[in-house]
């Protein structure tokens, strides 16, 4: 039954969100919904990053009271892999940046053609 243990579940959720996000981008006609589904995908990826760093039975990589420090105790043995969590921070910031810019675009697109349907913005073609 280890299939349903914590690490795997979060992986599945992450992949699920990514697929959901992709589906949203490809199917929704409204730009805001596209941006929303993009953020869903973004969070899916972030969950994936974090869940990959999970080590069963280890605690968060913050050296505080929950982790015994001591001469012979190596902290690494007790904590989960810290690098993915560092990476996820940057990924979230970048995700945030992109979404902000997308929303700014959505605003300008709306101002341009008073509509948010993606199909109306295909003037540069062929």
């Amino acid at each position: 039954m280890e299939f349903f243990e914590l690490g795997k579940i979060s992986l599945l959720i992450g992949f699920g969100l990514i697929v959901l996000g992709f589906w949203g981008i490809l199917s929704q006609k409204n730009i805001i919904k596209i941006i929303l589904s993009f953020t869903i995908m973004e969070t899916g990826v972030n969950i994936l990053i974090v869940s990959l760093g999970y080590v069963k039975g280890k605690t968060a990589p913050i050296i505080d009271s929950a982790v015994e420090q001591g001469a012979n105790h190596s902290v690494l043995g007790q904590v989960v892999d810290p690098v993915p969590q560092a990476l996820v921070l940057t990924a979230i910031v970048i995700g945030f940046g992109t979404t902000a810019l997308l929303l700014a675009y959505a605003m300008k697109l709306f101002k341009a053609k008073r509509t948010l349907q993606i199909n109306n913005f295909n003037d540069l073609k062929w």
Partner: protein
Amino acid sequence: MVDPIYIIAAALGVGFAIGILGNIGRNFAGGLTLATIAFMSFVSAQWFAGFYFGNVSSSYIFTAGFQPPLSINLLMGAEEAFLTFIVNLLGLLGGIYLFVNFKRKGRNAFVIYLVLLMGFNVVIMTRDIFNLFVFLEITSIATAGLILIEKGNRAVGAGFKYLLATSIISSMLLIGIIFAYFYTGTLNIDMIIESNLRYMVGGPIIIFLILISAILELKPFPANGWGLDVYEGAHQGFSAIVSAGTATASLYMLYKLLPIASPEWSYYIALLGAVTFIGANLLGVKQRFARRVLAYSSVGQLGLLMLILGLRGFLGPNVNYVFFGILITNILAKTGFFWLVGIVKANEIKEWAIIRRKPFLLFLMGVFIFALVGFPPFPSFFSKWTFVMDLANHGLFGWISVIIIGSFLEAVYLMRWFGYAVKSEDDYKFDFKIQIHKITPIIILTALLFVIGYFTAQFTETGAMINFIPLLFVAVLYFADALPIWVKNTIAILGMGIYFYFTYPQLDNLRLIFEVIFIIGGILTLIAGYNYKGKRQGFYPVALLMFAGLAAIIEAQTTLEFFYGWELMTAGSYFLIIRGKKSMPHALSYMLFSLGGAYALLMAFSIANIGVVFPSLDILNNIANYPVWAYGLLLAGFLTKTASVGLHIWLPGAHGEAESDVSPMVSAILLKAGVFGVLLTLIGMGQSTYDLGTLAYILGWVGAITVFVGNLGAVFQEDAKRLLAYSSIGQLGYIVFAFAIMTHLGWLTGFTYTINHFMYKAVLFLTIGAVVLRVGTHNMYEMGGLIKRMPLAFIAVLIGIIALSGVPPLSGFTGKWLFYNAVIEKGWYFQGVLVFFSGGLAFLYLYRLIQTVFLGQLKDNLRNVKEISFWFLIPIYVLIIGLMVFAAMPQLVLQPLGTLIANYFPNNQLVWEGSYAYTAIGHWTGTGVMISIMVMFLGTLLLVKLSTRKAHKLKQFDIVFSGERPHRPETTHVAHNMYAGFYKAVWPFTLPAVETFWNWISDFIHETAGFVRRIYSGNGQAYMLHIVLFIIIMFFITIGGTI
């Protein structure tokens, strides 16, 4: 050496400073940005110079004080230095170009621009894969940001699609990275490579994710709608930087990531590159808008670079040389062109006629187009050459044909665009002005193009042998274009004279003949140039370019030098032809046929170069592998220049529409370059150990049919110059057929015809050109009765047609007599008879020429037209003296020729006893026949003149007109539709079968392009779907579905 980290530090520092300092002056902010970019380019320039002069080795930069697995490290190797230097330099020039634009948008535009450049630098230098992802995202956000803050909503849609697409790609990359970390435990690329990820379970899928996003960044063909829209939509100055920057950065990123994956990936990348290169250029053919054409062209060039990346395994040592050569040309030319579009602001390519208002811009556009298509002296020419040579060494002819087809398609639409710019009517209201800050970057780029072109040439050993002096002479003439005509003309003639004086001693007899035809012929036709008034802008540099090319061909020792001369000649002659008034479509077809021919030569040379260290010209003598293919392609290439049947449709238009003194240059001289080529090939075939009889036999038939098609076409022409152009096709058919006989007599005939054709075709074209200048029209039925006004022109054309038709006293008969003997001795009876019948047809169109133009009724508006200009008469009568001497004493020329040919074909030569020539089956004397005919002629003339002393001179209407008086000269002059009866008998042969064939092909290309480009529907979502589908398809292709 300044530590490269300062590049990033400076950029970030100034970016934050501008942000923090608040409302400092925009100029100050702009100045500060430019200063930082200058500093960044200085750093990378310092490193690049270090590497170039060899005293520096590549060094790693460690951040945050830790070793790689724990921290990001950057590398400043030779490639990185070079690429960052390019990006920064472009950034600097872009900054200058966009200074006013950014100033208008505000300070943060400068900041974003700075961040963008920093992003490119880091993507090139970083060795950490996550860092790569971060800075990739930064560049895409910066690009989208710059597009967003532009006024107007032209590019908003494109920006949105761009941002969405790049975000999806980078999230795929992120997934790949995180799994790579999960498997290998490190983010450093070098370590990932060592951990040979690809052998682990599930490793290939990770590699697939990473590489596919790297590839998608390079906008591969089906999934690059979003990239095209940005290039087209964004402000030109800016889209230039994006196109150049992303190209360099993402290409290098892919190069860094490739070692991770298994070797097949290079094959897949090469495949994708090929698809993009051909696909983008195919679609470019159908485009009408200037920016969109440029967008397709840059995507196409990206495809080519991917192709090189994919095939780098086969390039051995000069992978850098090829890659950087083409990259540099693409970047410089593409950016320059984008900025040029920014200045000219014409939307449709047809409207580009307005560029003619500033000839300097037209020159710039010409430079960029010729650089992109890969003409000498630009770097892409040498790189493409080396690339094709190395591929051929490994027998990869499939890839070579891909390159050739792609570059041909690119040449199609770029040349057409240039044709519109030079020739379409300029009746557009809107105008443009040149700001100084926009033009200076472009000038710098052009200068760089030439300089780098020269250095790339020096880089290779064969390239170094190319003699660049003639090209310098052309440049001198270009800058002296403001001088009056007679100054430039004298300089040009002196230049050629001196060149001839220095080079002719070293040449053997064979090359000497062609040298005389090219240079002395050139001087003679240039003398006719004195007739023109004013400055005649742009004629002399271009004419000298052609002659420089011709000289280079003669002088060539190596195949590269020959190909270099060949391309120069094509460029020069293209510019010459396009000067004619209605010559745009013909110049375009001429260029495309010549390019087709040039690429055939390239392919042939590549086959010849297999396994050869030093590609000297005599490797053509015994091509080891696939000789039939090699010689066939060589012949095909040269036959486009001699306009043999099937490849002849460009000649009538090109020579017909050219200017009066250009048509003789192009017709009498240029076609001989093709003949020289055919000659070299045939010498090669002669010495080759393989049996190439069938190839010579086919060449014979091609020559014979060309004679028939050329002469028959000429009979029914209404336009005098078109008639002479068709006659040139016919005469060239003679020459090709004669050389194809491959016997002593055959070659002697070929040479006689080459010399003869040069002389009488130059005479005919010069005279008719001068007459056209006087009369103002090409149509023969509008001229007539000019013998009374232009007796000297009449005598010249009379001698010309007697010589051309082969009537005994003159030199044409020498050719015909040798022809008879050669054909009977060789045994090619039926081709021979077809040629003799076409000789009869020659007589028809020659009579038509002289009757409609000089005899018959003098039209009203030509009553007091003056004799043709004195400057035309000099070369004409010099050539006529030449013809007469050659007719009277043929042995003066034929004997030395005989000895020359003897060392190729020793047996059954032409035996000379004094002035009597004997072959195995016939005898003839030139001087004897000339004397007896002259005596008979003068005798009868004397007799008749005596008995008709007091003849009364009549005027034009004193003719027997069945009792009536003729009312108008137009109604009594027989000129229009002159051989109506003969047409009714032979019309099936005059149907334009070849034209319809070529038209069908061009329509086919246009239809497919029109059909395929439908996939770019402009809808953002559709583009995203393309990306996803592309990923799925590539997934199945590359990993075949195994996880």
